[in-house]
């Protein structure tokens, strides 16, 4: 029997990936453990190892193909002693490409979902149906069933359980036959598993943002003169940023809290600490703290002081995080990634500083593992080095807050009726209003301000 090689799911959330490169050619022998391909996932390029011995007889998906759904047939391996030609011919007989990845049906239908009226049970067919058997599929992963393309396939029990749990059944990914939503999917959804963002179509066009753009690509291109632009194809990271941040702004009700922080004491302390850094054998200081390292530490401690803000929203309830896992946005040549300093409240400034340098270096080399940039409770985005005074940042779900940090600069401030010069840094906290209310968010911001203005308080 030929072995079908399917697009692997390299992380729990991965739904599709780009086939960056084939490392084995057709006709080449493959041993268990050999790297056969490079798969570009959300934000990293991962190696795909063979789990069987054999000969690569057919590459089904050529390298450079984007958005290959998980479990789609990508290549065929002939086993020892098998006729490669026959094996290659048998290739298509595997599971239908995308059969598993394609989910049932898009979009919620809330009013009909559980209504007991007979109409909801058996929607009348559209007038004058031309064909007695409705077409089964119209394009990959889209079911029409001769009825509304938005029909959600779900068991009656699943519909009832979803209604009780207050979850739109159309948001639940189904594991039953043909992606039908069944009772156990609702149980999983209550724990936040397999739940799509509200309004997100179940079978979105691969790589498209969660909600269809108002204009088609063609319409947009038509606005510009042919030849006046260059079309740069999106890479995986670009698409992920587009998808995640679109989803974030569409599903998370953001509000923003801005405060000015006097960092005069911090700058003095930083200079003293850096000057006192012990030297290693090459004569280099063993650490060099940046203002941003203080910001990370202060945010981590502030999250501990106002623990109700160190949370993630899930349908089942708030996840109250015990540790402060602080993400730090790192700009890359063609994108952005947010590696996370775990347990930042327990780490010294020098430890944070060195870990951050190491993570940033690997982020730039695109060598971060998914577990190094997924999760987290809050993030820091610092554009101060570009002279930005103040800005707002988009929350990186499933986190509930993000701190946008502007430049520290000398500003005129009024103290005791007199104008003075002071080192001021403006910061803006974006909060998820589902999990954090205004007053609570303000407590977090003022806790941060107290720490950053009096860095000695970070010692207690």
């Amino acid at each position: 029997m030929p072995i079908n090689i399917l697009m692997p799911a390299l992380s729990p959330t991965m739904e599709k990936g780009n086939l960056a490169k084939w490392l084995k050619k057709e006709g080449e022998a493959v041993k268990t453990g050999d790297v056969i391909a490079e798969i570009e996932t959300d934000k990293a390029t991962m190696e795909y190892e063979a789990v069987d011995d054999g000969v690569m007889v057919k590459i089904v998906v050529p390298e450079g193909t984007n958005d290959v759904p998980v479990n789609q047939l990508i290549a065929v391996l002939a086993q020892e002693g098998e006729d490669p030609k026959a094996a290659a011919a048998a290739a298509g007989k595997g599971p239908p490409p995308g059969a598993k990845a394609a989910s049932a049906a898009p979009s919620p239908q809330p009013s009909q979902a559980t209504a007991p009226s007979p109409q909801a049970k058996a929607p009348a067919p559209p007038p004058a149906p031309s064909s007695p058997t409705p077409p089964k599929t119209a394009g990959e992963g889209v079911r029409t069933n001769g009825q509304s393309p938005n029909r959600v396939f779900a068991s009656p029990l699943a519909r009832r359980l979803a209604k009780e749990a207050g979850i739109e059944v159309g948001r639940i990914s189904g594991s039953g036959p043909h992606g039908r939503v069944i009772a156990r999917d609702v149980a999983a959804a209550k724990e936040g598993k397999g739940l799509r963002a509200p309004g997100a179509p179940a079978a979105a066009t691969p790589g498209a943002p969660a909600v269809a753009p108002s204009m088609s690509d063609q319409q947009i291109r038509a606005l510009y003169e042919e030849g006046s632009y260059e079309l740069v194809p999106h890479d995986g990271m670009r698409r992920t940023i587009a998808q995640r941040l679109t989803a974030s702004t569409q599903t998370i009700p953001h509000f923003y809290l801005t405060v000015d922080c006097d960092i005069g004491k911090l700058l003095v302390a930083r200079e003293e600490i850096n000057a006192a850094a012990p030297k290693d054998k090459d004569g280099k200081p063993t650490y060099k703290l940046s203002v941003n390292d203080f910001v990370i530490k202060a945010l981590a401690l502030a999250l501990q002081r106002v623990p109700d803000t160190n949370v993630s929203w899930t349908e089942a309830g708030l996840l109250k995080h015990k540790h402060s896992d602080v993400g730090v946005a790192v700009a890359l040549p063609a994108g952005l990634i947010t590696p996370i300093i775990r347990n930042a409240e327990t780490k010294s400034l020098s430890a944070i500083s060195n870990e951050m340098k190491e993570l940033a270096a690997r982020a730039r080399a695109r060598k971060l593992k998914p577990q190094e940039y997924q999760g987290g409770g809050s993030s820091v985005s610092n554009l101060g080095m570009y002279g930005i005074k103040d800005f707002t940042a988009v929350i990186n779900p499933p986190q509930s807050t993000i701190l946008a940090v502007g430049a520290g600069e000398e500003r005129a401030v009024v103290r005791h009726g007199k104008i003075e010069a002071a080192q001021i840094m403006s910061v803006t906290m974006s909060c998820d209003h589902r999990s954090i209310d205004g007053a609570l968010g303000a407590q977090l911001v003022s806790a941060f301000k107290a720490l950053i203005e009096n860095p000695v308080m970070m010692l207690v």
Partner: protein
Amino acid sequence: MADSSFDIIIIGSGPGGYVAAIRAAQLGFKTAIVERDYLGGICLNWGCIPTKALLRSAEIFHYLQHAKDYGLSAGEVTYDPTAVVKRSRAVSKRLNDGVGFLMKKNKVAVIWGEATIDAPGKVTVKAGKSEAPNGALGAGSYQAKHIIIATGARPRVLPGLEPDKKLIWTYFEAMVPDRMPKSLLVVGSGAIGIEFASFYRTLGADVTVVEVLPQILPVEDAEIAAFARKSFEKQGIKISTGAKVTKLEKKSDAVTATIDDGKGGTQTLTVDRVIAAVGVVGNIENLGLEKLGVKTERGAIVIDGACKTNVPGIYAIGDVAGPPLLAHKAEHEGVICVEAIKGLHPHPMDRLLIPGCTYCTPQIASVGLTEQAAKDKKLDVRVGHFPFVGNGKAIALGEDQGMVKVIFEKKTGQLLGAHMVGAEVTELIQGYVIAMNLETTEEELMHTVFPHPTLSEMMKEAVLDAYGRVLNM
């Protein structure tokens, strides 16, 4: 020299094995099946099918005896035990031939003999006692990447109750009596024991059933079992529950049993024959499992949801892979097993949705949780009943004794279980099985139109009853 290398070799051609073989062939695997005795296994040859043939003879005999109730006269009704057994054997033979035909049609190689697994991928077959059918491969070494064990089960032997096959029978001998015993002791009141009790009683034997547990048909809902017990006792079957046969003393053509009635008393009973129906055990021996390190537990091979054992390349399905020991469970596992090998990702079987049927008079059929099991799970339930006396078709058939019972979870309306006793219920249960498999709630069942006049109308009435809306009572 015939080819000895296959993609899949299945050991055992019972309902699990031969169905797995057909599915494997459909999926393009080069498949072989090893059998030592009868194609179709116990089910077709010594179990499900021949007993149904015997029970059908008994049923028609019963109807003829009661012809007057229907305004008919049948004269003196007698039976010929030899002819009854002959018919039953002919039914088995026909289906046994049918399996042979299906193997040929699907190009599944049949290997005749006793199989042992020497190592993953390697099977040695030794010539068995029975003669190989035409076209079967013989003893030798065979190779297959995937080996599926489907060796089934055999009657359990309890100390003191060892069958001698003359006076103390297992189902094998009980199925082919040379003459009708005048009196019979059945030890065990599971499906097998009760079916034989029913058969022999209908044909006139004096039947006693002894069950060690407090309830006959121990896996069934207590209310249904109690109803069935009353019917059996009305037919003249004597039943002792919570009782134990402690000794069997063989005479030349009779057996004297000592029965501990569980209440401190002991009695003796002399009968012509004894049927030991104290369950079955998996055939896990002499396959080489110990050497391979295949994990077994309480006499069954341990498998996962895709029927894989702990040893790669070795799978197990059916009775040998643990309860429930039912042919339809084995068939379904056979399909799942082969589809998983193919990489089709079949859903694992939900064991709660496997129906069970007993073909005594009255018949018994059930699926899902019993009322007690639901309560043990701390589920808040709604229970509905409907009796056969409220159903027009049942009355017209002259079969007005029976009951349909359904159990719903109060909060969600999920159908948790359905239990029936009465005429033809084994043919009705599948309606509820489909409903449960599709996760319907009471609402869809109430919206479903049931044809009139049928026994199936009781299934809807029982649902209505659970919600206080019963119509015909």
